[in-house]
């Protein structure tokens, strides 16, 4: 296997974390259709902060994110080895209960996908499938979560109308609220602002910064400036390997690795 000069595993792991991390990745390898997509990933993702995964297209950043949620399970010819511990529990253990694991992680995808139902039902969907039947409680959850994402005032008079009538920026905030309604501990964002206009993007970014006090957030982004604006930590992935992991300013301003330097400067993208 090719190793990058100056990179040793210790360097990527020397950040002292305040508490046991929510997510610990150990010796993770992912093969898709025979190709080695993720190679020996070892990483602790810090709690209550935003970690951005950056890297060129096809480097495996989205695969890494989806591996955290076991969303790769249903894809064709995928082989995952190693372990991902969420609160110490290995989600790739044989007896792991997948729906329970996924409930802990809210996913915000590239494009908003509202469910084919009303605004209210979109938010209430998660709590409902997890057994909440009390209408009063559901109404409270809907209001709280819509307020959380700053959508309440815009939609409170039309909670019963279809969610597809909202603007794309509003839809993305609705999707965030829908994810938060199942009380996850972790938020995963897969280029969540790539379909949005600059103002909606800013709204989502500010929300994520605000939400990090309660959640651990992992984002995939290909926009360096966005990574700089929102994240506390940056993980640079290249060819399926972790090249550099550290505090945002360390990685972006003083990258230790040559490839990171080239990427940050825009020579490779």
């Amino acid at each position, binding site marked *: 296997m090719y190793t990058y000069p100056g990179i040793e595993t210790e360097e990527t792991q020397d950040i002292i974390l305040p508490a046991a991390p929510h997510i610990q990745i150990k010796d993770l390898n992912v093969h898709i259709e025979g190709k080695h997509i993720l190679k020996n990933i070892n990483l602790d993702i810090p709690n209550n902060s935003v970690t951005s995964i950056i890297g060129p297209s096809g480097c495996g950043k989205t695969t890494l994110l989806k591996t955290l*949620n076991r*969303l790769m399970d*249903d*894809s*064709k*010819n995928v082989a995952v080895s190693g372990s991902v511990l969420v609160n110490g529990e290995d989600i790739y253990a044989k007896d792991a209960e997948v*729906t*329970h694991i*996924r*409930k802990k*992680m*809210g*996913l915000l*995808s*590239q*494009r908003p*996908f*509202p*469910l*084919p*139902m009303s605004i209210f039902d979109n938010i209430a*969907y*998660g709590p409902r*499938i*997890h057994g909440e039947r009390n209408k009063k409680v559901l109404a409270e959850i809907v209001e709280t979560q819509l307020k959380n994402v700053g959508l309440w005032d815009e939609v409170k008079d039309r909670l019963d109308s*279809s969610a*597809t009538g909202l603007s794309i920026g509003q839809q993305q905030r609705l*999707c965030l609220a*829908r*994810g938060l309604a*199942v009380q996850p501990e972790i938020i*995963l964002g897969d280029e969540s602002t790539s379909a949005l206009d600059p103002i909606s993007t800013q709204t989502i970014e500010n929300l994520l910064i605000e939400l990090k006090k309660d959640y651990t957030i992992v984002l995939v982004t290909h926009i360096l400036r966005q990574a700089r604006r929102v994240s506390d930590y940056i993980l640079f992935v290249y060819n399926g390997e972790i090249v550099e992991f550290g505090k945002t300013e360390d990685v972006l301003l003083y990258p230790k690795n040559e490839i990171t330097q080239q990427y940050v400067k825009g020579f490779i993208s």
Partner: protein
Amino acid sequence: MSHVNRRLRKEKIAKILMQLSGISITASLFLIVGIILYKGLPYLSWEMISQTPQGGFYIGKSGGILNAILGSLYLASISTALASIIGIPIAIYLNMYVKNGSFFARSVKLLFDVLFGIPSIVYGAIAFSIMIWLGIRASLLGGVITITLLTIPIVVRTIDELLKTIPVDLKNVTVSLGATRWETAKILLRYIKPGIFTALLLAFGRAIGDVAGVLLTTGFSDNLPKYIDEPAATLPLAIFFQLSSPIPEVQGRAYASALVLTFIILFIVICTHILASKQKKHKI
């Protein structure tokens, strides 16, 4: 310059070819409807659609084809309903529960493709031998069994194609909220609801128009279909019998029967479109 001209000429030829095929298909459709209307409309009467065949109906005496209209409607509706009850879960299973691209999924889909293409007389023959084995005589029940078998592949393959068009990210939405596959499937079915109506319409159209499948299994009766274990008349067979008559009056009634069948299908198509368009507001 000449290169550009050549490309533009190709573009023009392609366009003309497409327009020609469009026009010829539309024209032949109009021709079919025109002939049915021209030959059948003079014989279409209230008596024709409100009465059962009286004595001597097939030699030009009074009566109607209500037996066949009801028989066909029962047969097609029950079969389509059964085919969707059986077929939709199969399609969901193949898409959501079986690993995508697995040997099992591919073989089952191939099998349904083959079943899709098998002529209905083969279904009729198979169902006929099953009926003999079970001791069922030619009856509405026999027809329902045959036509259900015939329409299941249509439902499975159409719904399967619909489910395949759903973006993966959409499936991931409910999945990452902690939904089970079945809960996810319910949401996906909501998305493809307009398409499901189309699938059922296709199945219904095949069911109501089939002759060969019902020939051996359903029989024919001049009475209204009252019991499922008795022979029942169907419109395509009624058309077939009347058309083979040498009497012009009876032949005219065959075209009138064809007209009734066409109207039923038109009515179903319009209803499907209305139902489907009402669902559009939820489109992604």
